[in-house]
């Protein structure tokens, strides 16, 4: 075997070519190929499992319809953005506050950290199921607690006005502990001599936080916000479990929680949308572009404002 295009050393060939073969089959076959296939699907009116030459080519008209005419898509895009913003802001701000409060309690930290992290570990379906019972408007414990401290009951999932915020709160509850751990790791990396120097110069706690700790946490903040947004745009299990009714239609009441992932599921994989693969693929590509674009914008914004 004289043909050695990659210049792999003798003895290492089995490992290198094995890895590349694995990559081609499982990454190429089950990631890249379906990605390309998605784009193809979105350009056709795909029906059943017939080959491509028996399918009707429609060009970009699915995209045009989705982004110009289809109110369902535009509404759910907006809902997805609102939901993600609520989820990311709540879980990032609270995560930072908890990390700042927790880190000086060295001995209690493992226990506290575990309590905050527990919701992140459990299945989303379990979180949704438990929260659905707790947020039940008439008999749920959340309203019972609100009444005890003198606040009125809230409709939560029962009203289209508050349902989206309710699922965002639950998703933020599930995400919070992950952000706490990331912020704790970030805080540990801040050199203590910087903080000492600030103290010697007479800076107060508030000033030290805003002038030193906060700017130095920006890389972690970037990571938390970017990964949090990407995860939020794809949230599915919690919403599914909190809105599943007797009819298998999810994303209610009256579509109030039909975010993009739910719309995609209903379009491509349920009776409601009539298993419309082409339109589902169109939505999937739009979601991908949204995630990709937001990631790029976030990186740029956070880099230009905080680099020094």
């Amino acid at each position, binding site marked *: 075997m004289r043909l050695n295009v*990659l210049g*792999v050393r003798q*003895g*290492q060939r*089995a*490992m*290198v070519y094995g*890895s590349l073969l*694995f*990559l081609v089959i*499982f*990454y190429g076959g*089950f*990631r890249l*190929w379906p*990605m390309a*296939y*998605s784009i193809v699907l979105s350009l056709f009116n795909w029906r059943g*499992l017939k080959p491509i030459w028996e399918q009707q080519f429609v060009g970009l008209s699915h995209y045009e319809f989705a982004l110009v005419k289809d109110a369902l898509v535009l509404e759910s895009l907006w809902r997805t953005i609102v939901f993600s913003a609520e989820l990311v802001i709540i879980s990032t701000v609270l995560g930072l506050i908890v990390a700042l*409060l*927790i880190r000086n309690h060295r*001995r209690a930290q493992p226990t*506290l950290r575990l*309590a*905050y992290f*527990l*919701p992140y*570990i*459990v*299945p*989303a*379906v*379990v979180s949704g*199921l*438990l929260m659905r*019972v*707790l947020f039940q408007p008439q008999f749920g*414990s959340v309203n019972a607690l609100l009444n005890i401290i003198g606040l009125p009951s809230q409709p939560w999932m029962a009203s289209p006005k508050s349902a989206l915020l309710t699922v965002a709160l639950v998703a933020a509850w599930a995400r919070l502990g992950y952000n706490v751990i990331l912020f704790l*790791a970030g805080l540990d990396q801040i050199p203590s001599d910087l*903080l000492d120097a600030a103290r010697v110069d*007479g*800076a107060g*706690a508030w000033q*030290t936080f805003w002038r030193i700790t906060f700017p130095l946490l920006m890389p972690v903040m970037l990571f938390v916000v970017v990964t949090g947004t990407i995860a939020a745009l*794809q949230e*599915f*299990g919690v919403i*599914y479990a909190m809105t599943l009714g*007797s009819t*298998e239609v999810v994303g209610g009441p009256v579509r109030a929680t039909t975010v993009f*992932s739910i719309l995609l*599921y209903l379009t*491509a*994989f349920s009776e409601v949308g009539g298993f419309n*693969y082409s339109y589902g*693929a169109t939505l*999937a*590509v739009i979601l*991908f572009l949204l995630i*990709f674009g937001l990631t790029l914008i976030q990186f740029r914004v956070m880099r230009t404002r905080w680099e020094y």
Partner: protein
Amino acid sequence: MASERIPISSSFSDRFGGRGGPRREIAAYWLSLVLVTFGALIMIVPFAFMVITSFKTQAEIIAIPAVWLPSQLTLENFVQVWNRTELLRSLINTAYVAVVITAATVFSSSLMGFVFSKYEFRGRDLIFTVSLAGMMLPFYVISIPLYLMIITLGWVNSYAALIIPSLYNSFGVFLMRQFMFSIPAELLDSARLDGCSEFRIFWSIALPLAKAAAGALSLLNLMVYWNWFFWPLIVLNSEEKFTISLTLTKFMGLYWTEYGPLTAGSFLAVIPIVVTFLFLQRYFVEGIATTGMKG
């Protein structure tokens, strides 16, 4: 918690800038502990509710005003959920899928991480960069074509549909490669001089040195696949194949006012993954702290 000593002027005052006397510091110390403990209690309320409700009698569950602490404990809810669902089976199914995928991806990610960090060949970094793009692909984008492929391959309602498309893990390769970079080349070369095969070098030298990363990756994958919902929901359709999340949603769709069996089922779904987490958590915290930030 209560026995914790109060650091008079050590780390606490350093971190907070230290203006104000020790009394103010002590107050801030206790206030922050109270706040953060209160927050932790709020976080675990749903689990406390779950555990308590699962042992309550039906009469006390529906009682108005609500009964917070039950006067008697019962296993009735567990018996109910056990009898009405394939619960045990779906727990075993979930464990099977999660363990197989985790074992396979940790092995393949380690091997590829080793190849992409320790071997030199043309196009290595280009190929690696292309493979990283997989981390940017949301699963929804590939779900529809993947489903059509699964139909064509005849894998609907089988675990092949769950396991085989998951065998390559972009993040895993990335993580293991980052870790393997720090393994000194001299160590590997001296093993080569001793006549070790390349696979032996990987398996007996490199992999043990990257144990922390492999542990973190294992835990992460076990969590992801234990909690997996979207894809199993689409490709599995018979109850004896269901994973635990599917069994729970199915049960909830049918009996959604029966809080007792629902919370009992949730309790059983949560135990295995929480116990696993407790055993492996030190890897996870280490892994996040050292590599999470580099993503």
